[in-house]
């Protein structure tokens, strides 16, 4: 793979900033390595920028998943594992990870179709029961449940990498 040009590097940087909520040169370097390793999978028909974006996003998802797993393991058995105390409430890494995960979850909710988004917001975030939420949306309870089910299925597709 040839060297990336300024725009492609900028693209990688933007993906990292969007997904990880911060600039991280180490992650960018690892993405470059992955791009180089995976370049054989790139087909000439597709746009190089789109391919780079997908690889970079997938790398960030893996990165977040491994970080989340590390956090979970550390909170289960941090003493015997001898890891840094990542689960401590004041740990900046933990704070960053939680913020990052929350932001990605809300982004996924924002990307849902409007009907599904309203249903999720009222029931899951505002804490309304089905009857009240259905009244608010002027639909019946069955429709609301159906929308919630579909919304959660879509979110599951998008956020599978965050589920532990």
């Amino acid at each position, binding site marked *: 793979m040839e060297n990336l040009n300024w725009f492609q590097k900028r693209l990688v940087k933007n993906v990292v900033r969007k997904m990880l909520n911060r600039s991280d040169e180490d992650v960018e370097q690892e993405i470059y390595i992955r791009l180089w390793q995976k370049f054989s999978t790139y087909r000439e028909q597709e746009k190089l920028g789109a391919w780079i974006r997908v690889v970079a996003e997938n790398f960030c998802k893996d990165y977040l998943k491994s970080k989340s797993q590390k956090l979970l393991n550390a909170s289960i058995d941090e003493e015997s594992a001898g890891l840094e105390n990542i689960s401590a409430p004041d740990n900046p890494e933990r704070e960053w990870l939680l913020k990052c995960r*929350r932001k990605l979850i*809300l982004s996924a909710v924002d990307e849902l179709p409007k009907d599904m988004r309203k249903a999720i917001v009222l029931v899951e*975030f505002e804490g309304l029961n089905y009857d009240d939420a259905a009244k608010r949306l002027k639909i019946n309870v069955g429709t609301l449940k159906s929308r919630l*089910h579909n919304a959660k299925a879509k*979110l599951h597709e998008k956020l599978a990498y*965050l589920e532990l």
Partner: protein
Amino acid sequence: MDKISGLLAEAKPLYKQRKRERQILTGTFGSLVIGVWVGLQAWLPVPTLSEGQFNDYMAMLYDGDSYFAYEVESDDMLPLDGYGFYEVS
């Protein structure tokens, strides 16, 4: 699906925070608009007539030729009754 509910519960504090920020922003913007509007009402000069202009206007209205200019019945040369209305027979 329970995992998704768990993830959504995880994001709930950020949702609440954003909602609060949005409300504060909307409130601030609304207050600003109202403040600017009230300020403009207070500071912009209200068009008023001076006493001289007012007197001139009243004089023009009551003493000038333009007042009651709609009394055209008499100009039509049609017969009028004692009250100035058309005489209908």
